[in-house]
């Protein structure tokens, strides 16, 4: 028997605990910076300044955040169904093939038709890559964690093969497709120049950021305002009760995974259609895994995911500024710092909970309202 304590108030759960975890992560990172022989406060100032101190910094921060919103939502939807989809990386990678196939193959279409088609193709490919593990889990009981992680590896090789033999123009040395010219998402800079006549700093920020907001709203609506969402959450929270209620677990597993994959696939929209305008190797760059940390930190709720994604966007953008400004703190050190944040946010999620419980319930009891 465990000593039971009362449940913490909501603001502690979604506000204070993540904040404490973040602070501890920053202190640990600061120590690492100190060991290298740099001033941690200066390093942090450079990171904050580098992402929030200029329009360009904001642009980059929001661009990274857009990716993490998509992958974070993907993890969250599966998580609500009780599934741990760690295949966002592979699903987002496969989605690029969808985007490029439509974007290049149908480029005779006018862009108002072509672009939505390319977005749908991205979602479809991401969904397909999550659908297979979903079916394997639902019908064969193959564990979703194992299959999705394996599908990351398969996608990594497969997409390389497809680009090389399917998309690379003859004579081109780089393993990448030719430029996608029709399915084009305008960057913030182009919008400012063309429509407002304003010149702003260059950044990869593009219209996909609005798609991320729409996706976040859609996920919220799906989970809390539809019968399907109710079934997804019921299955994740209590599978026995879901069976009693006549909710078919196999069906929900497959649907939830498909939606999850489609969301991960949207990451390719930002990256391929919005920024790179061509299909290239390794463009996902770990965003699929960051999505896990984002979903954990955001408590699998769209609002939390938006905030967490921005924090990780800040870390990414500030991190690159830092490695640029301080040669001692190289790119790998920045990854260490990001890793520490993920560690404290995700893995140590419950580390400070007992202490806080003791603080809130000094008598060690359950406050039954």
């Amino acid at each position, binding site marked *: 028997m465990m*000593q039971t304590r*009362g449940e913490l108030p909501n603001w502690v759960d979604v506000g204070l605990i993540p904040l404490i975890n973040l602070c501890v992560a920053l202190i640990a990172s600061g120590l690492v910076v100190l060991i290298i022989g740099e001033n941690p406060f200066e390093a942090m100032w450079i990171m904050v300044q580098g992402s929030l101190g200029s329009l360009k910094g904001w642009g980059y921060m929001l661009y990274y955040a857009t990716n993490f919103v998509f992958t974070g939502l993907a993890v969250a939807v599966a998580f609500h169904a009780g599934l741990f989809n760690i295949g966002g990386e592979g699903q987002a990678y496969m989605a690029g093939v969808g985007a490029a196939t439509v974007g290049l193959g149908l480029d005779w279409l006018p862009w108002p038709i072509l672009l939505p088609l390319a977005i749908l193709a991205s979602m479809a490919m991401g969904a397909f890559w999550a659908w297979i593990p979903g079916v394997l889990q639902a019908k064969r009981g193959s564990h979703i964690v194992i299959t999705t992680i394996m599908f990351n590896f398969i996608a990594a090789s497969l997409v390389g093969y497809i680009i090389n033999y399917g998309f690379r123009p003859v004579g081109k040395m780089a393993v990448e497709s030719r430029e996608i010219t029709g399915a084009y998402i305008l960057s913030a800079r182009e919008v400012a120049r063309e429509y407002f006549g304003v010149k702003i700093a260059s950044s990869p920020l593009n219209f996909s950021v609005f798609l991320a907001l729409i996706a976040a709203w859609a996920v919220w609506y799906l989970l809390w305002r539809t*019968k399907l969402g*109710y079934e997804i959450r019921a299955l994740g*929270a209590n599978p026995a*009760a879901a069976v009693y209620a*006549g909710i078919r677990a196999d069906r929900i597993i497959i649907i939830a995974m498909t939606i999850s994959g489609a969301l991960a696939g949207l990451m390719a929209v930002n990256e391929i259609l919005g920024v790179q305008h061509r299909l290239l190797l390794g463009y996902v760059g770990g965003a699929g895994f960051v999505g896990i940390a984002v979903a954990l930190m955001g408590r699998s709720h769209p609002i939390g995911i938006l905030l967490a994604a921005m924090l990780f966007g800040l870390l990414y953008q500030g991190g690159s500024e830092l490695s640029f400004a301080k040669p001692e703190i190289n790119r790998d050190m920045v990854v260490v710092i990001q890793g520490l944040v993920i560690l404290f946010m995700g893995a140590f999620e419950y580390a400070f909970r007992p202490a806080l419980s003791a603080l809130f319930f000094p*008598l060690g009891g359950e406050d039954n*309202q």
Partner: protein
Amino acid sequence: MTPAIELIGIDKRFGSVHANKDVSLAIATGSIHGIIGENGAGKSTLMSILFGFYQADAGEIRVKGKPVKIRSSSDAIALGIGMVHQHFMLVEPFTVLENVVLGAEGGRLIGPALVKARAELVRLAKDYELEVDPDAIVGELPVGLQQRVEILKALFRGAETLILDEPTGVLTPDEADHLFRILRTLTDQGKTVILITHKLREIIAITDHVSVMRRGEVVATRKTMETDVMELAELMVGRRVLMHVEKGPATPGETVLEVKNLTWKDRKGIARVDNVSFSVRKGEIVGIAGVSGNGQSELLDVIAGITRPASGQVIFEGKDIGILGDPRHVRAEGLAHVPEDRQHRGLIGSFDAAESAILGWHHLDSLGKGYRLDRDKVIARAKSEMEEFDVRPPDPLLKSSKFSGGNQQKLIIAREIKSDPDLLIVGQPTRGVDIGAIEYIHKRIIQLRDEGKAVLLVSVELDEIRSMSDRILVMFAGRVMGERGPDATERELGLLMAGVAQDAA
């Protein structure tokens, strides 16, 4: 003689809940002392304080007259206090011997401890009639023997005082009798037993003294010889209890449910429901009695569409619903189901009450057209059900797990009855529910019957079956042993429950 355990002025608060109010209790050495009370009366908290899980806010514990501080269960064990939990704390794939030694290995190597423990087990078995094969795998033992292993564990650690928390909840009557004999032997040898229960009969049958708890206080301590069931029940709830349910005669109409030669087999191919046939008519309550684990749960699952029968038919209003194997379709036909295990099946603890109150019925158009789920309608529906069925607190936004057992059950009953079923199947409607809620739940089920609906009731509480049912079926080993009227004697039903057939079923 100094009492084995004395609790003096124990006080414990959990936030705003006053779980134990100035509780004083003396447990005489070599006696069986019962502690009885409704769920939430503070029995378990008190014992948890004695066993070191909680610290009292105020008060003193004396063991054999000496004041002691018990900060953890290891302190309690060192003082000779052992506890047998309601849910066993056993490692199922381990042998009996390994389980007994667990946590008391006394060294890095397991070998010597096992040798010592084996000898000790032989001695304990001889002294207290606690025979268990030391090399049996615990997970393969029947529940009664598993409980014996728990007792052995406590004795092996030198327990002088043994606390048993609701020990008979999981036992057959035979096993319970055997347990009582063991407890008697233990006290004859000078051990002390504290028995926590909410079953009045057990208190009368086995204890020397009994303390009644209500709302965190010990309201009375009596010598068992000098009290009776009625007095204890009154003390428990603080008012006179209706021991019998008030209901008029049944006016059965046409047959609603007909189960024909139904068989259901588990994974090992054993028939857990074996060629069962019966019918339920409109306007009557058919009760299924039986010791827990004789196929009642499986029968309910098949009728509710959760599992598919191996053979036979479940005919509901002329349609074979057994072949559907889908609870949602079965519900759509007009069958409502209150599951036996409300915590694990009946509701979703992390959902708010409003969301739990639509579980299974969430696809109804009245809760939102098409794919949509209209939050306002969900809350409104829960609110009206909670008000009608007096669910407390009547807050549809409160998490389901925060309600007491009785209120959770009312929430489920409300959900199923308000779905306006032609047939309600109910499993253990009042298990772990306080007496006030029991009365109310019974009243609502009878009201449903009087409206001309059919009810199939499964309960392991014979009193409940006898007072509620218009016809009683008794199940044993997956078969229906016989059918009796509501006036059947307890002895008659008991024989059927034990598998002694007096007539061909």
